[in-house]
Structure formats: structure tokens, C-alpha cells
């Protein structure tokens, strides 16, 4: 997994372990870091993930760091965690079909107003209207198909689009 953090519009390449340290430093919105004073007005963290099951928990771990930095409450944190796990699950399993040559890109963009998360796969795409409603009585006993419902339940907005270079992009926002 590659992690890239942007703090106050400065791009800082970091490893995950460093990202954790970075998180600890950046928890307060205004503070000191390596002798410099900083103010977090906008921050972006980007991940490039392998198409494997373990990537789902990795994405959730980074989401938790971002959520803490932005000072979101427990309820919002739970929703973001759930939505990120479901979106990355869909990207790894249904989009990229666990093809190791295909990456999943995740970005977290935090601002004073909201957190915007995008997840992009490299799959062939799908028609949203063809996704069965999992709460329809005839679908209740199906083992899968509830991920999008959870994303929509726990985030304020969820939009799907096609990436110009291929793959599906889901953009989810949580307002503060």
C-alpha cells in the first residue's frame, strides 16, 4: 500500500507507519510540528491499494486516522468506517475481481465542512439501477448485495461515475 498525505496543500509522501505518526502530530487542527506552526484547513490522503481482502482493513485504518484528525464524532466515525469498508470491498471483489494487476485508489479529502472519500476501481463498471434492492422481500435472504445500502445509510451523499481512464468511481461525503 502506498500512502500520500497532503497537509495544508503540501504533499508529503509517507509510509503507513509514518502516517500514524503524522496523525498523532496533526490531531490538533492548529499546532506545532517539527518546530513549525501549522493550521489544517484542508488535507488529502491518497492510498493505492492491492486488490486483496486485506486492503479493506488497511483502508479502514487510514480512514480512522483521517476521521480523528478531522475531529468527527463516534457516530460519524462508525459510518465512515462502514462506508469505506463496503466501498473498498466492492472495488476489490466486484470491480477488480481480486485481479492483482489492478489497483484500487482511495482518497480522503477533509475540509472544515466535510470529509469526501473517493474509491476507484479498474473494473468494467455496472449499472446502478440494475443492483437489486436488498430490502425487497424477494432479496432478503440473499447472502450479498447490502454494501451500497450501508454506504447510502451512513454517508450524506453517495455518487457513482465512470472514470475517464476506465473503472468506477464512488464519491461519498460526510458533512461535519
Amino acid at each position: 500500500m502506498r500512502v500520500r498525505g497532503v497537509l495544508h496543500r503540501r504533499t508529503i509522501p509517507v509510509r503507513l507507519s509514518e502516517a500514524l505518526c503524522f496523525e498523532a502530530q496533526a490531531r490538533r487542527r492548529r499546532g506545532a510540528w517539527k518546530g513549525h506552526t501549522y493550521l489544517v484547513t484542508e488535507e488529502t490522503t491518497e492510498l493505492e491499494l492491492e486488490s486483496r481482502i486485506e486492503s479493506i482493513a488497511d483502508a479502514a485504518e487510514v480512514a480512522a486516522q483521517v476521521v480523528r484528525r478531522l475531529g468527527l464524532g463516534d457516530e460519524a466515525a462508525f459510518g465512515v468506517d462502514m462506508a469505506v469498508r463496503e466501498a473498498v470491498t466492492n472495488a476489490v471483489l466486484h470491480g477488480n475481481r481480486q485481479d492483482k494487476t489492478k489497483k484500487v485508489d482511495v482518497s480522503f479529502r477533509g475540509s472544515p465542512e466535510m470529509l469526501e472519500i473517493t474509491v476507484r476501481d479498474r473494473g468494467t463498471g455496472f449499472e446502478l439501477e440494475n443492483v437489486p434492492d436488498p430490502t425487497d422481500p424477494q432479496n432478503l435472504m440473499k447472502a450479498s448485495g447490502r454494501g451500497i445500502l450501508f454506504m447510502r445509510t451512513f454517508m450524506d451523499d453517495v455518487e457513482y461515475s465512470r472514470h475517464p481512464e476506465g473503472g468506477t468511481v464512488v464519491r461519498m461525503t460526510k458533512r461535519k
Partner: protein
Amino acid sequence: MAELDIKERQAGDVTVLDMDGKITIGEGSVALRSAIRRLLEEGKKKILLNLAGVGYIDSSGIGELVSSFTAINKEGGQLKLLKLTQKLQDLLAITKLLTVFDVYDEEPEALSSYK
């Protein structure tokens, strides 16, 4: 520690699985599936899942509960749920599965409900 710890005990003819951890895609879901499959192979068809220690479940975990329910019903057995956390109750309500599962807060009440 494993993502999902499952301890089995017998209460009369009901097998209780005390679960602790997460039921999420991968390890947690697989652990639940394996446990249910093993019980059915052993002819244990009255199964009570004690979910008091399950603080987190994703859509894959919910799917695994549904699959377990279906598999046990198919064998003529019964799967019931005990001590759902508030979060899990909320998720089952969102997915409209609260009406599908037989859910109990107290173990004696759950045990006496099996035929």
C-alpha cells in the same frame, strides 16, 4: 488474537456459540461459516449465536448470518440470535432482517423457545 473468537457450549440440546470479535469479510465471516458447517456435520441443528461480544459486523458478516440461517433451516434446524449489540440491531433493522431472525435478550428465554 483471531478476528473472531468462537467458543462452543451445550445447553441441553441447544448448541450455544459465544462469539467475541468482528464478523467482517475474510477471517471473521469464514470462522462463522466453518463453525456452522462443522455443527451441521455433527448433527447439531439447534444453534444459538450469542453475539454479545460482537461489536462490529459488515455486509459480508450480515450475509454470513443469512447464509447460516438458510443452511440450518435446510437441515431442519433452527438458528436464533442472542444479545445483539445496539449497532447490530440497527444494521439488522436497516436491512429489514430483524423480522427474519428470532432474536432474544435473555438466554433462558432463547433456550426455551426451541422446539
